[in-house]
C-alpha cells in the first residue's frame, strides 16, 4: 500500500519560523506542502519519512525568506496493481460499489468486477451475492477486501481561469482506484473468516 518516493525541492522558511530548529522548520514546510496531497502518477503523499540532504540557507533578496534546497523521502499511499487491500463499503449504485478507507475515499468496484450471480436491489440500494439459496449482502460500512486492477489520474488543471472552470476541475478526484472483488477471498471480510473454531 505504501512506498517511499525520493524528492528534491526548494523549501522557503519565513522569518516567523526562525525560532524553530532548522530541522523542524524544514520538516513542517515539507509536510505542509505535501501531506494529504496527490502527486500525479506517484500517489497520495502521507508525510516526510527522512531528510537526506539540505543545503546552506540563503536569504532571498527583498523577502527575508531563507531558501534551502532539500532532498528527502516521502511516505506515499500507492497500492500496486494486483494488490489486495482493506476498505469499507460507502455506497452502492447499479454501476457498482463505492469503497473508502478512513483516509482515502476514491475506490470503485464496477458491477462487472463482482462475482457472477450478483444482483442489485434498487429499494435497499445494495448489492447481493446469491449463492445457491443463500443471499449474502454487500452492506454499507461492511469491511471488504478488494484487489486493485487500475488507477485513474486526473491533473486538476482547469480549462480556463474562469471561476466555474476552476471549480469544475476540482470536482474530479486527482487519483482514484478501481478494484475487483471477483476472486475467492475477496468481498465482505466476514464471508471468509474462520468459522471452525
Amino acid at each position: 500500500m505504501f512506498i517511499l518516493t525520493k524528492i528534491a525541492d526548494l523549501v522557503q522558511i519565513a522569518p516567523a519560523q526562525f525560532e524553530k530548529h532548522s530541522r523542524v522548520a524544514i520538516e513542517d514546510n515539507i509536510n505542509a506542502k505535501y501531506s494529504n496531497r496527490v502527486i500525479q502518477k506517484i500517489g497520495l503523499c502521507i508525510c516526510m519519512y527522512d531528510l537526506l540532504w539540505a543545503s546552506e540557507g540563503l536569504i532571498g533578496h527583498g523577502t527575508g525568506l531563507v531558501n534551502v534546497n532539500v532532498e528527502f523521502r516521502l511516505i506515499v499511499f500507492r497500492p500496486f496493481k494486483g494488490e489486495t487491500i482493506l476498505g469499507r463499503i460507502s455506497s452502492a449504485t447499479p454501476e457498482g460499489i463505492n469503497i473508502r478507507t478512513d483516509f482515502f475515499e476514491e475506490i470503485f468496484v464496477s458491477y462487472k468486477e463482482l462475482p457472477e450471480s450478483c444482483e442489485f436491489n434498487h429499494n435497499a440500494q445494495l448489492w447481493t451475492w446469491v449463492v445457491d439459496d443463500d443471499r449474502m449482502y454487500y452492506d454499507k460500512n461492511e469491511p471488504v477486501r478488494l484487489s486493485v486492477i487500475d488507477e485513474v489520474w486526473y491533473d486538476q488543471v482547469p480549462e480556463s481561469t474562469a471561476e466555474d472552470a476552476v471549480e469544475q476541475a476540482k470536482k474530479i478526484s486527482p487519483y482514484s482506484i478501481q478494484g475487483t472483488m471477483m476472486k475467492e477471498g475477496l468481498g465482505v471480510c466476514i464471508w471468509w473468516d474462520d468459522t471452525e473454531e
Partner: protein
Amino acid sequence: MKVLESQSALLTNHEVYTFLQNQAREYQEQKRRGPGNLETLRRELLQYLRSEENPLSQEPPAYDDESIAKLLKRLRPYEIQKGEMVMIMNLRPVNIPMLNAVLEDMEERFTAEEQEDIVAGVEEVLGKFPPKTQEEGDVMQTTENGS
C-alpha cells in the same frame, strides 16, 4: 519539485504504523504540532490501520520489528514475490480463501499441502485474532455484573 526516484522502497503497513505512532509521540513530547493537513491525515490513517479487520488492531500487538525477518525465514521454501510478501504482512491470511486473495494463481503454484503450510507459517509468526465466540460476550457480562 522534482521526483528523483518514484519508488525507492515498499513499506509494510506495520512500518508505516510504527513510524506514525512514533511521530505522534515525539511531537507530543516536544510540545509541537505538525501542519493541520498532516495532523488530520495521521489521525485518519492510524484509525484505518487500527480498524477491526486489520491485524495491527490486535491487542497485545501481534507484530514487532522482527516480524518481517521471521516471516521471510519461515516462508523461504516457497517462491513468494515481494509484493505478495507485503500483502501477507498487511493482511495476515490465516485460511486458504484469504491466502488465495493475496497469491496470484495460487492453485497452480502451490499444492494443497503447501498452501496449508504457508497459512500455518503465517499464524506461527504473525498470530491470529482470537475466535469471536458467543461465550466470550457472556463471560464479559458476568464479570461486569460481579457475580
